[in-house]
């Protein structure tokens, strides 16, 4: 399997699940949100970017083959 794809798949899981012990706090409040909520919402954008990259890699490969 393509190592770039493996990394792109792992990043959202590490961000959203793996980092929980380190982001379990209320302060600082970022964009009006408690830090934990801010971190998880940021994780949504991280996942979006990673899946978008995966989609680009896959559609390129499909055209080539």
């Amino acid at each position, binding site marked *: 399997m393509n190592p770039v794809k493996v990394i792109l*798949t792992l990043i*959202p*899981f590490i961000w*959203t*699940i793996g980092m*929980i*012990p380190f982001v*379990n*706090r*209320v*302060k600082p*409040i970022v*964009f*009006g*949100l*408690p*830090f*934990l*909520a801010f971190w*998880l*919402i940021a*994780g*949504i*954008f991280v*996942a*979006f970017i*990673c*899946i*978008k990259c*995966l*989609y680009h890699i*896959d*559609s390129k490969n499909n055209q080539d083959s």
Partner: protein
Amino acid sequence: MSSESMALAIIFVFVIGITIVGMVPGMNKKMSLEEWAVGGRNFGRWLNWFILAGEIYTAFAFLGASGWAYARGGPTFYILGYGALAYLVGYYVLPAFAPLGRKYGLMTQPDLVEHIYKSRTLGILTAVIGVAFLLPYLQLQLTGLGLIIETCSYGQISRVQAMLMAFSMVAVFVYTSGLKGVATTAVIKDVVMIVAVVFFGLYLPIHYFGSVGGMFEAVEAAKPGFLALPGGTKALDVGWVMSTLVLTSLGFYMWPHFAANSFSAKSADVLRHNAVYLPLYQICLVFPMLIGFTALLVLVPALKTPDMAFMAIVQQTFPGWALGLVGGAGALACMIPAADLLLSTSMLFSRNVYGKTIGKNTSSESMGKIARVMVLVLTTIALLLAIYLPNMLVNLLLTGYSGVTQFFPMLVLGVFWKKATKLGAFCGVLIGEILVFGLILGKMDPVPFLGQHLNAGFVALVINMVVFVAISAMTYKPESNKG
């Protein structure tokens, strides 16, 4: 117009309007079973988007997320995390399922299991477990709807009347239009829901505290630590959130109705493309939480039922029309997911249980009729249960997410791992389900572990996976899989 009749009129417009929209695709048209159950497998990006996305905004997102925020605080934020990860899992899994469905004419999740393992018994087992978890979920939508309409009509419509009225309408449009009816109404439901939660979710904190940040500062000042883990609970700690996120992100697409939804896609690319944008939709789930946190500070005295937080604070802040709007949007949030559940449950029952046992020789045309009649039968059963035995299925519901996730090793490894065997799948699923029931009904959920807590479904999934892999590896014979 008095505010009570205003609220009532708005709810009626929503409920009747959505039924008409739902009936249109099936009118003046004779649908084959394939068209009815999986939309003729020609849903493009938009319809597929709304049918997949629409499942997120259910009665739970509407009442449950605000109620959790109100009562539990920080642990509620897990809801923001699982969706994006679930779509990433779906990005790999759904495009693997959909082509099998097209090639072999599969329409349901048990069809898929039966196809992968060439085992009718395993298919029937999956169908029976599926029905056992879908029926309580259907009943939950019904009970939620009764509660919403009763409150938002200021008690003018009783719970039972509301359930009878709304669910006969759901049954009618599922009967006529099948999955196409569900998809078109999901579009309207989502638009209404988003407008409602974004409006109230921003207006209420700003109205009472000047800004969203001001509201959270006030919560932190009043209850320090409530907005982190474990918040207002004892056991929903860091370990619980992490294990729950693993469980829910893997289990999301294991709900039987999602299999049918992925079979409706025109191509695998539609599913991949939508997986890219669906995570962004999850952001809207933060708004019901804002409402719940505001209600925590504003509502005096405290609520006995946290799930009423959304409606109670709207009732306290706004005139009747606003409550009507919440009631209408809430009714749709229960009706549309219920329609999808109803369709899937009737297919599991008629095609995978009846069709594989007593009715083996049923033609596809009469199977279509049976599946449709089953919609009416199931609606009646769910109604009777909701009215007469509202608590009987609570135990099944508690185990729902943990229960369906036990399908994950069987379905996903079954497709991606050559050595998966029938016996491995059997043992894995059975052990997983027994553990889920044992731990949850034995009040062992969450399971204490090294000073933290783990979601019981996660524990069952790990053991299920180990058993599945070990037995598969022992029973795998290269030549036996070629047939």
